């Protein structure tokens, strides 16, 4: 059991080498993913405004670099858990644009067959064990997945996304302790967008840096510019390497900013327009695009990416619109599975 292997040096040969962490990320691919997330979010907002979709909508516009950089550092079969601001996380892990739109349209073809909705996106096929509508709700689930990976000796890692507000929840601290105690391959990825819903973090947290909260459990904390997708990738890749080498969990605090409200309809009276404007100038897509230009990527190539993504999104919207609604007679389906008693 992990309890007894705490802080032991990793045993040579016990760990299967994975190349992902050693690769330089392909910034073009990262940019494409961020652009996809951005356009999906903007399109969802339009559809919401037009009442084509309903419910609630928590956009991650401005935070695309965190989920994109982090998921790029994971292998396809690694696990994530996410939050109610989770469209970007599941897209970054590999969920199709169609499955996301169809889910938000509440259609049978959605990733959760229309039963989950915007806040609860789950896609086991890509390793998304589930997003949670409850602040900090996904954190212990990721710890359990890391324990499962350890017990199965499959060398997978588990990464949980949460906001800085979640670090005030009891279960965050319980989970951090458990992951550290058992030296689990679990990465605690805090997307610090400065506002816990509508309240500035300075009014909510006793510390300035959420990464510092790891020290109470002996978990190393790292702070990274959450609007720099390559920096996020590198930082996460290091944490992944540690986790796979049985060196235990890491808490990453990625400083970022959501450029839209907490949810659709948020009047954002709690923050000055100048602050939003200042962060707009540090928009992660702009940062990445400038860097692409510096590296000699032609604007035609970027435009081509934009057009491809736009076309995919419109195709996905059409797909969602044309997809069937779940049948009322199937409303009870999925509550229980058939017992497996032999």
């Amino acid at each position, binding site marked *: *059991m992990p309890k007894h292997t705490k802080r032991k040096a990793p045993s040579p040969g016990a760990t299967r080498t994975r190349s992902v962490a050693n690769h330089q990320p392909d910034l073009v691919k990262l940019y494409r993913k961020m652009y996809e997330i951005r356009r999906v979010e903007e399109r969802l907002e339009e559809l919401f405004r037009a009442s084509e979709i309903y419910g609630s909508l928590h956009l991650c516009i401005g935070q695309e670099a965190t989920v994109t950089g982090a998921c790029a550092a994971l292998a396809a079969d690694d696990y994530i858990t996410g939050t109610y601001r989770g469209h970007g996380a599941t897209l970054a892990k590999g969920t199709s644009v169609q499955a996301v739109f169809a889910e938000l349209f509440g259609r049978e073809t959605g990733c959760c067959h229309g039963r989950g909705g915007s806040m609860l996106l789950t896609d*086991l096929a890509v390793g998304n064990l*589930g997003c949670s509508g409850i602040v900090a709700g996904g954190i*212990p689930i990721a710890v*359990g997945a890391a324990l499962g990976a350890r017990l199965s000796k499959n060398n997978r890692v588990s990464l949980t996304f949460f906001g800085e507000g979640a670090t005030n929840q009891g279960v965050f601290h319980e989970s951090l302790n458990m992951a550290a105690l058992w030296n689990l391959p679990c990465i605690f990825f805090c997307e610090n967008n400065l506002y816990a819903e509508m309240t500035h973090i300075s009014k909510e947290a006793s510390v300035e840096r959420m990464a510092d909260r790891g020290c109470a459990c002996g978990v190393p904390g790292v702070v990274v510019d959450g609007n720099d997708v390559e920096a996020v990738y590198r930082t996460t890749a290091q944490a992944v390497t540690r986790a796979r080498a049985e060196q235990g969990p890491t808490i990453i605090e990625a400083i970022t900013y959501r450029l839209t409200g907490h949810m659709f309809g948020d009047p954002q009276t709690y923050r000055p327009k100048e602050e939003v404007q200042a962060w707009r100038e540090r928009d992660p897509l702009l940062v990445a695009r400038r860097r692409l230009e510096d590296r000699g990527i032609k604007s035609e190539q970027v435009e081509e990416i934009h057009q491809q993504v736009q076309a995919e999104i419109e195709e996905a919207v059409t797909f969602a619109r044309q997809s069937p609604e779940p049948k009322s007679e199937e409303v009870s389906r999925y*509550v229980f*599975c058939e*017992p497996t008693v032999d």
Partner: protein
Amino acid sequence: MSSASRPSTEGPERILTYAQALNEALREEMARDQSVILLGEDIGDYGGIFTVTRGLLGEFGSGRVIDTPISEGAIVGSALGLALTGYRPVVEIMFVDFVFVASDQLFNHVGKARYISGGQRAAPIVVRTQQGSGGGKGAQHSQCLEAIFCHVPGWKVVAPSNAADAKGLLKSAIRDGNPVAFLEHKALYFQKSPVPTESSAIPLGKARVVRGGGDVTLIAYSKAVELAVAAADQLAGEGIMAEIIDLRTLKPLDLDTILESVTKTKHVIIIHEAHRFCGFGAELAATIQEKAFHHLEAPVQRIAALDVPVPFNRTLEKTVLPRVGDVVAAVHASLGRGE
């Protein structure tokens, strides 16, 4: 459906405590299925505060019997993570009262895991815990919270009254593949009763007719079955033959067995140790009148704990809890016989 029977099913019997029977069920299921693992506080080295997991750490190792920190939310949440990575966790929550600490994970996450993912996720998780009054444990260690688990969709709920049922039902709960709240009773752990040597799984959702009778139906579960039996013995002396149904599983509910009895006796008394208001008895009474109103000759009555936190003082605690005399009086009232 069920016919009058003893707790055991067939074959030679041994006399075991409820705790020993549960221990056997865990041991057999762990041997049968490598994916079954145990998580909980003091379950490994210590063997569980009621001895249910005694010896299992030595037998199955620390990768399958995992002592956890006192962190109920993270225990239940990590059980879901384990379930999603191919395990069948059996979680011990030391006292049912502590499920409130873990309630977000239990009710917002585990119970809804399958539904909200459109069937992608399964949560084959058993939460074993124990409830009820054990004599002076006070208001935070004596509750009966079955109604909470029954109310929020996604949980099956089991409450065994004897050793044989405890073993057979736990085996089914572990194999079920859905979240199961397995509610043991702290005052039953060291009571002995016969357990078949070759015991098989007892299906969830099947009640047991403890004793046949034509005059009145007493419906109970968990330790309240004792009250029903004691009352029935007393009533038999007066020539009143009570039929006793031990529900064993509260959700899914074995309505067939209940209605079969109710349409025969036309008088129903529900007995439980949980509080009366919005207790499981309210659901039963409502369902019985919906389904069998015209068969009833008297109102369905409930015998339950008072709507008061369970007090420490011995006399006050007894005052809160249902008693045999309450059951007998309710039967007399139902049958129109004055005291």
